[in-house]
Each structure stands twice: as structure tokens, then as C-alpha cells.
């Protein structure tokens, strides 16, 4: 595993500095790109099999091909570094350790799609990393690698600009259309699609939105060649991925590994196993919006989109959250539901109301004031959100809740039966009985009728 390719997080010291990056062949891939036709580059990215690292694993080359051709119209690229999905912390590594590869990736993408200007959107909480990225960008401008001066540097007619836009605390701004509204100086409300960004994006102009890691991979593809790149990792979802592992492992962190790596290898070999040698109860494989896996089903699971899809979950952002046998999953699910409720922008009723409902029901379960039928209600609410909203935050809220309740039904049943709820004799007076306001003890068997 140690000799697996490091395409983004290299071991070279000070790689974040422009001179070190250049001394190791930096910006040569962009030079190479300039000798190709834009369409050739898009075809190369298609052939590489690269799929987006922002959550949906959408084929990058295909996305680029949706953009109208030519250099005579204004077009934009938005590079998504909002990174606010709980459990995700990998783009931050790129800002810190390899900012120039991101810049070079943007230049290649810009040339391939005829982009006028690119905006790197970075979440506001990353103050320090915004400064690091800005420093790298300033250096690249000063060296004539970006902006008007690049015409002289590279001896072609092509030039493009890159800017950083600082977010200010809103998870929803990671959603691509919300992100565009945020760059424009509006509230970050997602837009109804269609029209898609490739037709009507930033300021109404054709726009492509890609994740930071996706774009940072482009120079590596140019260097290896699409066919060599496609041989790395899982055939349907090739390359390396920055896995961010957190929770109850001995060595949490970000690890660059080929897609298709065994989940158990990541946990036990790369991350040094589970703290205190405990058993694993649950794992979220790709950031908190992805349905969980049970500890007893992770044997043989490969970490790529196609393999995870078969199991009813997704690669997401590659944020792996490990929970040991002592974890209270009701508490975890409630925390996740609280997050999505808090972050819902409130435009769509199923998301706004549904997220509130889910949190409320889970709160009751956690307090011991719920009944078994509430678990079905929870799943019902989740089903009603899924697919009925403007953006995918609705799904992101519904999936983990439904996933946890379904996969760990036994634990949720235990939570509702141990803290028995009785239908109060005085229910007609509108007062709901709870453990604390009733004098029955736990031995008495009343079947809850709510």
C-alpha cells in the first residue's frame, strides 16, 4: 500500500512552493496541453475515466463536453472548495500542500473549455488555508503563469484569470447553483435546474462547477496519459482518492489511495485499526449524507462508487467515519438530522418541514418519549423528502436517517422500548404521557398506540 501512486499528496518536501513545484516539472502539463486542441484534452479526460470528487462521482470529461465551444463567449469555471460536508476534510490538504497543482489543473481546464475566469470558492472557516491558497495564486500571477502575462510566458494567445471567493458559513453553498449565487453576492439559495450551469451559470454565462480534488487530478492525468491513469484503482471509477478517515480509528487523517481499496485495509492497515481494539458498529463511507454500513458487512467492501452503490450507499466525498461498538447511534443520527435541518435553506417544503420533523422525532427517541411506530414515521418522512426537492440537500438529509433506522432497527427499537412510552389516560386532554410524568413502572405492559 505504501507504494501506491501519490498523484496529489506527494512526499516531496515544500511542494507547495512555486519553485519546488516547478523544479519537479510543475506547469509543464499545462504547456503540453497548449500543444493540443481543446477537444483533444476533453477527450483525454473522458478516456481517463475521471469522476468528480465533490460527491456525485459524475464523469468529468462528459461534464466538460456540455460547455458550448469556442473562445468568443464568456465562460466561467467555479472550483468548489466549500468542503462543509461533515466528515470531509481533504480539499484543505490540497490548499496547504499542493496549491499549484490546483492552479495548473484550472489552467488546463480553462484552456480545454475556453474559460474566461475561474473562481475558487473556499469555505470561510478556512481563513488560514485561504491565505495559503492566495499566496500560491499571487506567486503564480507574479511569475506570469496566470492572467494577461501568460500570453508572453507561454507564447500563445490564450489567457485566463483565477480568483478566490471566500464563503461565510453556509453548508448549502457547496451545492453548485447555490455556490454560484453566493459568488454573485446573493444569498446562497439553490437554483431550479434546468437550466443547468453549462447553459446558464455564473452571471447567466455557461459555467462548469468542479470539486478542488477533481481539478487537482487533471495535471496528473496529463502527465500519465489517460490510459495509464485509467489503469489505477477500480476500472469504473479509476485513479487515486483522498480518503479522509475520522472517528474511532487509531490514526485518523487524509490518505491518498487507489479507488477500490478494501475498506478493511484502510481501517486496519492504513489507519492502525480501531481504538482499544473495539469492534466496529457502523461506518459512514463518504461524508455524513451517505447511508451507513453495518460493521458486520464491511468485509470485502471496496471503496469506489460502483462497489458502494451495490450496497446502497455512495463514495460521496470519501470521508470515512468509523464508529465503534460503544457508539450511541440514536445520538449520531440525531446529530446528523440536526445538521441538515440547520443547513436547509428553507425554499422547499419537504426539505424545510421534513428535516424539522426528523429532528423532532429523533429528539423524542433520544429522550425516551417515542414509540416503535415513530421509527416507521421517521422512514416515512425521509421517503417523502427524497427526490421532492430543488437540490440534493433533501436527499442528503433523508439518506443517513433512513439508513441508520433501517440498518440498525434493533438498536432503535431498543431505544424506544427501554424508555417505554405510555399513551396517557388523559390523552383526551391533549397531554402526552412520558416516562417522567407517569407513575407506571417499566414492568407494566401497555402497548403504545401512537
Amino acid at each position, binding site marked *: 500500500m505504501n507504494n501506491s501512486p501519490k498523484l496529489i499528496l506527494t512526499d516531496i518536501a515544500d511542494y507547495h512552493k512555486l519553485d519546488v513545484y516547478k523544479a519537479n516539472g510543475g506547469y509543464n502539463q499545462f504547456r503540453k496541453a497548449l500543444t493540443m486542441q481543446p477537444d483533444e484534452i476533453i477527450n483525454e479526460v473522458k478516456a481517463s475515466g475521471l469522476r468528480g470528487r465533490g460527491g456525485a462521482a459524475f464523469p468529468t470529461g462528459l461534464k466538460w463536453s456540455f460547455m458550448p465551444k469556442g473562445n468568443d463567449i464568456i465562460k466561467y469555471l467555479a472550483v468548489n472548495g466549500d468542503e462543509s460536508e461533515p466528515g470531509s476534510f481533504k480539499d484543505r490538504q490540497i490548499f496547504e500542500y499542493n496549491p499549484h497543482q490546483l492552479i495548473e489543473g484550472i489552467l488546463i481546464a480553462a484552456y480545454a473549455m475556453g474559460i474566461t475566469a475561474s473562481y475558487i470558492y473556499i469555505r470561510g472557516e478556512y481563513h*488560514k488555508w485561504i491565505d495559503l491558497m492566495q499566496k500560491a495564486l499571487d506567486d503564480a500571477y507574479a511569475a506570469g503563469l496566470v492572467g494577461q502575462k501568460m500570453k508572453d510566458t507561454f507564447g500563445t494567445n490564450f489567457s485566463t484569470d483565477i480568483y478566490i471567493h471566500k464563503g461565510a458559513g453556509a453548508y448549502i453553498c457547496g451545492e453548485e447553483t447555490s455556490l454560484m449565487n453566493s459568488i454573485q453576492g446573493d444569498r446562497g439559495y439553490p437554483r431550479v435546474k434546468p437550466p443547468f450551469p453549462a447553459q446558464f451559470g455564473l452571471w447567466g454565462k455557461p459555467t462548469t462547477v468542479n470539486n478542488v480534488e477533481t481539478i487537482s487530478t487533471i495535471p496528473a492525468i496529463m502527465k500519465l496519459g489517460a490510459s495509464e491513469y485509467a489503469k489505477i484503482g477500480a476500472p469504473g471509477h479509476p485513479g487515486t482518492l483522498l480518503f479522509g478517515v475520522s472517528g474511532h480509528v487509531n490514526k485518523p487523517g487524509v490518505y491518498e489511495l487507489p479507488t477500490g481499496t478494501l475498506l478493511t485495509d484502510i481501517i486496519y492497515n492504513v489507519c492502525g485499526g480501531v481504538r482499544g481494539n473495539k469492534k466496529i458498529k457502523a461506518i459512514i463511507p463518504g461524508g455524513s449524507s451517505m447511508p451507513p454500513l453495518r460493521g458486520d458487512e464491511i468485509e470485502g467492501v471496496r471503496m469506489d462508487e460502483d462497489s458502494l452503490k451495490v450496497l446502497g450507499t455512495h463514495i460521496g466525498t470519501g470521508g470515512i467515519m468509523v464508529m465503534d461498538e460503544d457508539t450511541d447511534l440514536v445520538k449520531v443520527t440525531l446529530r446528523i438530522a440536526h445538521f441538515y435541518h440547520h443547513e436547509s435553506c428553507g425554499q422547499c417544503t419537504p426539505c424545510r418541514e421534513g428535516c424539522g420533523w426528523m429532528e423532532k422525532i429523533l429528539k423524542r427517541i433520544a429522550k425516551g418519549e417515542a414509540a416503535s411506530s415513530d421509527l416507521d414515521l421517521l422512514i416515512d418522512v425521509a421517503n417523502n423528502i427524497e427526490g421532492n426537492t430543488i437540490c440534493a440537500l433533501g436527499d442528503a438529509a433523508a439518506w443517513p436517517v433512513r439508513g441508520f433506522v433501517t440498518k440498525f432497527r434493533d438498536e432503535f427499537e431498543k431505544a424506544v422500548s427501554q424508555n417505554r412510552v405510555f399513551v396517557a389516560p388523559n390523552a383526551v386532554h391533549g397531554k402526552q404521557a412520558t416516562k417522567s410524568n407517569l407513575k407506571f413502572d417499566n414492568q407494566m405492559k401497555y402497548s403504545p398506540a401512537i
Partner: protein
Amino acid sequence: MDIAFSQEEIEKLEQIKTKYPEPKAALMPALWMAQKKWGWISPEVMQYISNLLNLPLAHIEGVASFYTMYHKKPMGKHHVQVCTNVSCMLRNGDKIYEHAKEKLGIGHMEATQDGTFSLEEVECMGACGGAPMVAINEDFYENIDIESFDKLLDSLK
């Protein structure tokens, strides 16, 4: 207090405007500059920015309230942000938050009387590999526990 940017800041803002095809996009950067200068986005600041960027006041209010990082009331000199989201919670982030509340005697988005500290329970900060984490103003502190948290806070005062 007279609310106005310095000449230098005005020039910086003009320069920021050139990054975007429409000046409205300079609003978020302007709010960041204002918060850095005055600590929070007061109604007077909103009015000033509205005049400066020639945007309706309602738009400034809408944007300032949409984004949680723009403070709509004064916060402490040291703004303590404790993450309680899942990865941090799995490693006791929630207990650190409870401890912080008790230690400082304040709740979410409140400041101490003397204005030294304010507290915020934050969502995932993108530091899950170093969980549990707290941020104080712009600095991240990872892999903390109650003891190191206390030391950190005592060193600030």
C-alpha cells in the same frame, strides 16, 4: 463611532470589484472587511455598505443574515468555536462544548460581560481528522481535550 473605511480599504475594495463582472459580487468581501474592522455587522455598517456599493439595504440585510459567519451582534475578543458534529462528537467534542459553556458561563452566540470571550457551537469545520477541535477566532486547535482546552483558554484571558 463614525462608520467608514479608510482610503486604503476603499482602494482594496475597488480592486476586489475588478475580480467580478458585476460590483454586487464585492458584497461578501466587503462584509468580511467590515467584520474584520468593526468586529460585527451592525445596522450602521449595513447602511454604510449599502451606500458604498449602491445596493438596497434589504439586500445587505438578507445576505448578512444568510451567512452564519457574519456576526449580527458583538462577539468577544476571543471567539471560541467548538465543533460538536459527528466526527468530533465521537471523540467527545460535545463534552468539551458542555464544559466550555460552564467554564465561560455563557451559551451559544453569547459573550462574557467583559467582552473577552464568546462561544459558538459550530458545525463540522473540516478538521475531522484532528477531532475533537475548537477554533479561536481564525486559528484551529485539533486533538484537544478538556485539560488542553482549559490551558488554551487560560493562556488567552
